[in-house]
Structures are given as structure tokens and as C-alpha cells.
């Protein structure tokens, strides 16, 4: 990927990367990405997104704290409400099954699955992590704006040869993360982390086939020739 990366190439080559190389990410590259991502649209131009980008020692310190802290209760928010719906549950189980099959982890091997889930805490070895939060007052449409910003960042990262993985998992440590980066728990909700780095090209967890619904089940066309 390079500065000639088309949008289509960026969309098609982006995937959630769950094994990163230890190659560091230059500050100037991420700065450029974040500067450009300011041009993401938002309803009423609210630009509701906020974040902290951590690398090096501060990131390591935060991860050490998370390792010895139980997931918070109550949760910051529920990311899995739709999982009770059969079609959503089926999609989640499919992606999980495909991923663990690629990693040669048996369905019944709970210990191995648990170990892999715990890799979320260290963002799968990514050298940098964007922690995403915003004012609690924001409603569902503003969450959509934040999503637009996140996808803009992930596509711009592809242009720089970088990879990412959005991690709602990190919201299990929302209070801890906010305290660490100095953001008010009262005023702000923590949404997710974005792991940022270069993909490990060899690891099978980055290479399994990902499913999507056929377009016909998502979009109707009316009035076209």
C-alpha cells in the first residue's frame, strides 16, 4: 500500500488484524492520518469524536494495569445486544469459528480461546493504540459520526501501509483507561480501542476468509433501468 492506494484497494485490504509485527509506527505518519481524518463528516458538524493515542512506555504501563484488573462491572455499555438475535448470533459464531479454525484451535479448547481473547488487552501486539471516547450526552446518530471517523482513520492507515483492529473489548476497562489518559468518567463514555501497526504477514489469524451478506439482502433498488 502506498500513496497510490485507491479507496477500493483500501476497503478491500482492510481487515481486523490480530497479530502485529513489532515494527514501531512513526508519529508523523499517524499525525498525518489524524489530520486528514478531521475532514470526516458529522451531523451538524458536531465532530463528536475524541481520542488518545498511546505507544511505548505509557501503552505498556496501561496494559500492565489492565492485566491485573478484573473487567469492570457494570459494563460501560453493551456491545452485544443484537447477539440474542439468531441472524446476528450466527454471523458472530461464523467469524469466530473461521478465526479459530485458521489458528488450529479446537472449538472445545476453552483455555486456548481464553488465552487468545486476553490478547485483546495487549492489542494483539500492536505498537500503538487509539483509545476512542466522547461526551456521554451524544446519541445514536453521533455514534454513527464516530464510526465514520473510525473508518476514515482505518482506510487512511491502509494508504500508509498500516493495519488496524477496532476493539470494543477494551471497553471492559473503560474506567481504568479514562483515568489513565486523564478523561472524566462522568462526562465521557469510552467506546473502543483501535490497535495500530503493521500486520504479521505469516500469521494465519490474519488470513482467514471473512464472510459478508449478499448485497441483495441489504439493498433494494427502485426505479433504475
Amino acid at each position, binding site marked *: 500500500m502506498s500513496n497510490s492506494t485507491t479507496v477500493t484497494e483500501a476497503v478491500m485490504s482492510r481487515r481486523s488484524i490480530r497479530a502485529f509485527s513489532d515494527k514501531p509506527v512513526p508519529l508523523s505518519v499517524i499525525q498525518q492520518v489524524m489530520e486528514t481524518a478531521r475532514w470526516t463528516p458529522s451531523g451538524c458538524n458536531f465532530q463528536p469524536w475524541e481520542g488518545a493515542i498511546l505507544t511505548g512506555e505509557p501503552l505498556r504501563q496501561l496494559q500492565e494495569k489492565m492485566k491485573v484488573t478484573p473487567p469492570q462491572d457494570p459494563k460501560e455499555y453493551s456491545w452485544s445486544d443484537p447477539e440474542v438475535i439468531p441472524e446476528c448470533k450466527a454471523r458472530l459464531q461464523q467469524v469466530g469459528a473461521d478465526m479459530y479454525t485458521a489458528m488450529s484451535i479446537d472449538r472445545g479448547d476453552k483455555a486456548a480461546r481464553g488465552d487468545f481473547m486476553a490478547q485483546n488487552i495487549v492489542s494483539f501486539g500492536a505498537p500503538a493504540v487509539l483509545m476512542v471516547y466522547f461526551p456521554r450526552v451524544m446519541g445514536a446518530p453521533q455514534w454513527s459520526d464516530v464510526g465514520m471517523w473510525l473508518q476514515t482513520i482505518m*482506510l487512511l492507515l491502509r*494508504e500508509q501501509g498500516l493495519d488496524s483492529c477496532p476493539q470494543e473489548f477494551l471497553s471492559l476497562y473503560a474506567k481504568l483507561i479514562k483515568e489513565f489518559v486523564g478523561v472524566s468518567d462522568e462526562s465521557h463514555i469510552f467506546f473502543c480501542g483501535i490497535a495500530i501497526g503493521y500486520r504479521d504477514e505469516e500469521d494465519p489469524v490474519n488470513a482467514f476468509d471473512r464472510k459478508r451478506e449478499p448485497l441483495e439482502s441489504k439493498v433494494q433498488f427502485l426505479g433504475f433501468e
Partner: protein
Amino acid sequence: MNVTEAVNSRRSVRSYQDKPVDRAILRRVLETAQRSPSGGNTQPWNAVMLTGEPLQKLLDKVAEVIPQGLAAYSPEYNIYPPELDGVYQERRFGIGEAMYAALDIPREDKASRLKWFARNFQAFGAPVLMLVHTPRYMGPPQWSDIGMWLQTVMLLLREEGLDSCAQEAWAVYTKQIRECVDIPDDHIFFCGLAIGWGERSDAVNSFPVPRAPLDEAVRWEGF
């Protein structure tokens, strides 16, 4: 077109050329956009693409009720949080004032401003309108997934030379939309996306759009 060019050249375009958009182009864009990420691979987005006769029917139906003003509104969610203030109100008014300044419509000229606002409901003359909906059981994180998908669509449209305008304004006429297109009752209608070839030299499409400096949104640790 690279990603940076697409991000930088995307803007909410509010006047369009009278030129149709091929279904094949839109299919290509939407097929690629299916690769947008979503938590648990939920893929919560759904859409109806309207052009020609069915689009005109919707515009006509809404035009009939516009004179009723707020009495005809039927949004199914709050487009913006009622209690927002401070910097967010400044940003909201800032973009409105920038647009009306480009159009030479002063604050006092309420009639002209209202007339301009009503152009939302002609999709600003765009030949295609995409209507976005999602199951009601989806929570805020899934709305974020829909946002990722929407931005993917808007950037891919740029790559095709097309322009767009995301329009939450359509939410106020959800009732009329439901009368014209088949959106399941257990789905919520979110927004429209006007799609077409922009009149890029028009004043409304070329005024500078403000954005907050990066330091207001992002902090750095350990670099």
C-alpha cells in the same frame, strides 16, 4: 483516486447536475462497501436506492406536507441531543452561517433560509437518494458500524467521480418515507444520502467548511 484525495474532496454537496447515475456504478460501490467492518460482523446496515419515478413520488409526497411545518414531523429518534451546548452549538451554527454566507442569505431573511432548508427534501436535485434503515434492536455501537459503512460508501462514490450529501433531515418525514418505500416496521429509519454528479463550482459547494484543530480531539502519549 487515493484515500486521502477521497477524504479531502468529499464534502456535503448541495446542488447536482441533471445527469442520471448508472445502477452498475452504484452496485459496484455497494458491493465493495459490504467489506466495511462491524462489531461481531453484525453488518447492521440496510438501504433502499431510489431514482426516477419512485424518487419523484417520494419528493412529491413530502412536498405536500412541508407547508404544515413541524406538525408533519415524525422522526423516530433525536437527530441531535437536545441538551447539547457550548462548542457543539458553535460548530453547528458555524457551518450553517458559513453556508448561508456563501449563498448571500442573511440571518434576517428567514423565508429564504427556510426555502433553502426545504431543498433537503428534493435531495438537493440529486438523481439518486439512498434511504438507510436498521433493525430497532441495534444499539449505539451498531449505529457506529452503520457510520463506518456510510463513510465507506461516500469515499467509494468519490472514487467514481460521484458526490453525496448525508441527510439526517429526512428523518423528520419518516412517515411519508414509510408510505413510499418498504421499510419493515421493526426497523428504524436513520438518514438519506443524496447521490449524483455535483455542481462543484456552485457557491453552496465551494465555501470553506470549518473543522476543529486536531488538538481539540486527540491527545498523544509516549511518542
